[in-house]
């Protein structure tokens, strides 16, 4: 019970929820902290709605990136797609040198303002670490294990689902984790292109030289990134095979 209470994931999540609920009632506090400001509290949009919008954008783009990334990673590690592996790896290496903001900035004039360009940019950029780690994870499965499974009469599909993917899962999940964390950050900047995210108070605060707005956006979004990172850390710990202590010999 005591360990539960000290769980950082629990209290950072609670802090995030409490913060988002308390912010709309915090006007006197910010008025006292920033006496020079005419509008000490961001009231153009609801904080809970901004958090929901942020989560929706990251969830939708990362979800699509996981499906596409897994598919691409699995394809190029099969015999049928092996010829494409070099090409895909080149695209990933080059693509990862592109700053995420650059992808976002180019998507807007092509697609227009709003949710869509942010979604496309986050999807494209989020794909790269997932494909990368899917290939690394699947390639890291020892060949003798695959041989043994084949010897036991398992089909290619069964080998993939029951042997390769479970063994590669921790590595793949690490890729999903960095993809999601990058996307939380890019989604924040995406409020410059009209997406409804927690970046909105920051951007409006920066434009209007209003440090209170900046804090009201920056603190929840930083907390959100930390909560998601801790959640993935927890998931990863659950996936690791239990370590058996070797008997002292």
């Amino acid at each position, binding site marked *: 019970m005591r360990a539960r209470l000290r769980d950082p994931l629990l209290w950072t999540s609670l802090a995030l929820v409490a913060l988002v609920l308390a912010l709309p009632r915090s006007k006197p506090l910010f008025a006292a902290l920033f006496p020079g400001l005419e509008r000490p509290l961001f009231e153009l949009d609801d904080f809970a709605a901004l958090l929901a919008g942020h989560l929706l954008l990251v969830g939708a783009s990362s979800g699509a990136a996981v499906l596409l990334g897994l598919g691409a990673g699995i394809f190029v590690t099969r015999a049928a797609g092996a*010829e*494409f592996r*070099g*090409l895909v790896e*080149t*695209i990933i*290496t*080059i693509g*990862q*040198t*592109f*700053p*995420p*903001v*650059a992808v976002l*900035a*180019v998507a*807007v*004039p*092509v697609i227009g303002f709003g949710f869509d360009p942010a979604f496309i940019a986050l999807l494209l950029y989020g794909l790269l670490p997932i494909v990368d780690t899917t290939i690394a994870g699947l390639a890291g499965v020892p060949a003798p294990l695959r041989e043994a499974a084949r010897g036991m009469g398992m089909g290619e599909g069964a080998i993939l689902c029951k042997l390769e993917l479970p063994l590669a899962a921790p590595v793949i999940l690490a890729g999903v984790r960095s993809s999601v*964390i990058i996307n*939380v*950050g*890019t989604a*924040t*900047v995406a409020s*410059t*292109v009209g997406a409804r995210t927690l*970046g909105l108070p*920051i*951007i409006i*605060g*920066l434009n209007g*030289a209003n*440090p209170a707005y*900046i*804090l009201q*956006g*920056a*603190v929840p*979004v*930083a907390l959100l*990134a*930390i909560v*998601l*990172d801790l959640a993935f850390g927890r998931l990863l710990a659950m996936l690791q095979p239990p370590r058996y202590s070797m008997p002292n010999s």
Partner: protein
Amino acid sequence: MVRNRVLLVLLLAGLLAAPSLAFLTLAPNRLVSGAPISLGAALHGEALILLLPAVLLALGVFLPQRRALHALTAAAAAGFLLLLVRLAGSEAALLAQTAPPVARISLGGAFWVLLIIAALALSDALRRLAVPAPAGVLLGAVVVGALGLLLLSGALDSLAIVREYAARRTAFAAAILRHAAMVALALLPTVLLGLPLGVLARRREALAAWLFPLLNVVQTIPSIALFGVLLAPLSGLAGHFPALARFGIGGVGVLPAVIALILYALLPVTRNTSEGLAGVSPAALEAGRGLGMTPRQLLWRVELPLALPVILSGLRIAALQTIGLAAVAALIGAGGLGAIMFQGLFADALDLVLLGVLPIILMALAANVLFDLGLGRLRRLRR
């Protein structure tokens, strides 16, 4: 009989994109969206020579795969790339003759898709040829140099992106310098701070136990949030002590950006230094001790040289990340190439966005290539 399926897929993607997307767009002014001009409409007269490398690439799909064929494919891909850019420039010049002077002729989707396909075909052919990395880089530099000559010759002057450049030549050069300065100002302290911290973290577990989780949390915080949080106290400080503002310690500007960039870059440098030292084999340490080396000599002559490749890959991550994040710093008034990018974004002008984005990408690619070459050289020396 299909003998090169990668090239086939690339060609099919090109055949799909060329007729369905615009090669160029012609807008009478900046506010109106442009009318598309297809590649088919641009292919006339001299421009038909673009079909020659395209046919050669198609042959590469079906002919028996030999080294000579891969070399031909690589040459055809490079030729296609250069001819494509030249065609965009000459067709734009032709259109500009009849269009009003404020008309904007922009590069369209088909141009970009074909450009990327040609570059990918080139890299795939070089991989099949098993060209060593330095030679590949040299070939890439030759293609980029040829593009630069094309640009300098004035052949591309009618394109809107080149016009945007011509209209803000000095601001553009200043933005590149500011961007590079920000990256250097962030990376230098990162190395000076990160290397000793990494060494210390390896020596004292108590330090590593709180340092790495802390840097990890910093790394997860979205850049714009960290920029914003640093901005408020620094502007408050400058408000209370106006003298500070004269030294550039104002809220808006380079200082908060550089502090945030250092905080982000510290994790890869420190972690990789520590991990690199941990990877040094005990036998090497033992041998050093046997030679009578002091702990200091051991660190400088055995541990750090052996850990160098891992430290350099950490530095590579830090450099690439800093080049990209410095673009976001434009939002807090730090200037740089990000300022041009966001200016284009808010004006809905793709050409201006690209004018800001392309140098950022080129800078990142150049840094990546430099680190690749350095690491490759290091590995060969070890052998």
